[in-house]
């Protein structure tokens, strides 16, 4: 039936929204729906071209008009379902982007903090421009090798979504740059800061990090008392765990 595939797509979107997960982009299904919509369109075109306007208005062709209406509505519904699916995914991708503190490289390099930090351009941008601030942002100065997860974000996104994410990152960077001298817009806003210092445990080696007290080398297993602002990013990315 017309619209069955679209319904399936919407259900999938609904499911991912309810569980706040981002499953793999269902490319085959989407192609299927696009194909169906094009077929509907050609039905409509061929029907309308084989009748004149007068013929369609006459009562004996009522069935044809009804058919046209159904095709038309089905096509529009398909489009709406496709849009809803895409929009839902865009929201999901954006949500993950903000959750990861705007670190696209990190987001793409690993799944949910399962892997390591990438010294990508976005991280440099986030950490580098901060010089008039006493907090002295921490930028990891070394990187560790990482193994790619088979279910990483990159493979779950469609190529277009990947493009979208990267361009979105550029947009946000250009939005937040004027504020960078005082604050990083991408840091967490989940709760107001209560304490300046946090007790953290290192769960993954992340090399030498510049903090307020100078260089600190975070070795796996050790515990430190450090300024929250200095290590916020590392906590978000899963290198450190608050104790």
């Amino acid at each position, binding site marked *: 039936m017309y619209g069955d595939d679209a319904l399936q797509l919407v259900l999938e979107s609904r499911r991912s929204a309810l569980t706040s997960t981002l499953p793999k982009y269902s490319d085959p299904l989407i192609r299927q729906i696009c194909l169906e919509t094009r077929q509907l369109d050609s039905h409509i075109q061929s029907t309308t071209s084989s009748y004149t306007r007068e013929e369609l208005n006459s009562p004996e062709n009522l069935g044809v008009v009804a058919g046209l209406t159904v095709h038309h509505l089905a*096509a529009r519904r398909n*489009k709406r379902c496709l849009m809803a699916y895409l929009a839902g995914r865009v929201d999901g991708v954006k949500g993950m982007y903000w959750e990861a503190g705007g670190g696209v490289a990190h987001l793409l390099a690993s799944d949910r903090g399962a892997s390591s930090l990438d010294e990508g351009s976005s991280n440099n941008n986030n950490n580098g421009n901060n010089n008039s601030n006493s907090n002295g942002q921490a930028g990891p100065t070394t990187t560790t090798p990482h193994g790619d997860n088979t279910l990483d974000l990159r493979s779950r996104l469609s190529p277009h979504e990947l493009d979208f994410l990267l361009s979105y990152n550029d947009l946000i960077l250009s939005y937040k740059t004027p504020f960078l001298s005082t604050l990083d817009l991408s840091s967490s806003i989940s709760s107001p800061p209560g304490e300046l210092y946090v007790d953290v445990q290192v769960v993954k080696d992340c090399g030498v990090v510049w903090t307020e007290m100078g260089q600190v080398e975070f070795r796996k297993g050790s515990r430190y008392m450090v300024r929250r602002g200095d290590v916020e990013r590392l906590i978000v990315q899963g290198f450190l765990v608050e104790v």
Partner: protein
Amino acid sequence: MPSFFDSDDEDASIPTRPSGRRDRDSLPNHASSSRTSSPPSSSSFLDRLRSTATPNRTNRSSSTAFTTLDGSSTGIKRYDLEDVDEEGPSNVNINGLDLGGRDGELGEGLEDFEAYQFEDDNDVKQLIRAWMRERGTRDIMLWEGELLDTVLHKVEQQGSMLELLRSDPKTSEEEHFKLQLVSTEVERVKYLIRSYLRCRIDKVERYSHHITLEPEVQSRLSELELHHARQYTNLLHQHFSSSVLNSLPEWLRRMDDVGNDGTSMVRQPNKEIPVLIHVLKDCGEVVLSDGERASLEPESMHLIKYELVERYVRLGWVEVL
């Protein structure tokens, strides 16, 4: 006159932050920094504001003031220190107690005469109100550019001050502790700014297409936000087109369809969503959709459709909770 380093009992007031609503309330008092620092007798607030306007000068004078604080510091130097160290715990403590009257006067001079006047007012409190308003409503509020600039500038000043004092070998143990309190406050103000901006950016993206079509909404945004709205709309349309729309028949490729049920593809703020408001100033009566009348008396609270009180929210006569 209390100065930055001479009071002891404020240490006890250092917040162990509660969570939730209470937290939001406690934020203003402790985070309140700037405008309410006690001014030396005759100088007006605006003078003091101006005197802090040039960071170089402030840094220099404040360091002098600091080193001579315990000794023979002159009135001028002390005065400078207080300007910069507005976040001093002692100042925080006296906020809202004995300075209420003076701040009220200042408020009148600075604010739009139509807007509601708050008894004690400072930048951070204004920011908190803007933030609450922004978070409580679906619609985009007026961009508080001037306020934000002031606060950002002060945060930056505080940052460099803190750095300076922290690296100063003459700073004593106890003063280091107090510096930490100050920097906690700075962090909390930063949180406010961040949350405010992020909330707006979220709305801007949600309604980006609508924004690009409506000059009235555009007037409420900062230039940066407007730019972002336009770019984002383009990006989104491009993404939709290349993902799906280009493989659909041509008559289905538009981004501004209206569905059969009247739902438009251009998303707009839903002004029918109810908001919880706290009335500060008598707004008279509003007519509800079923023809009933409700009077918005001061100090009363209502759950009401946003469109009915939109005007009063913008004027600041009612607070959105």
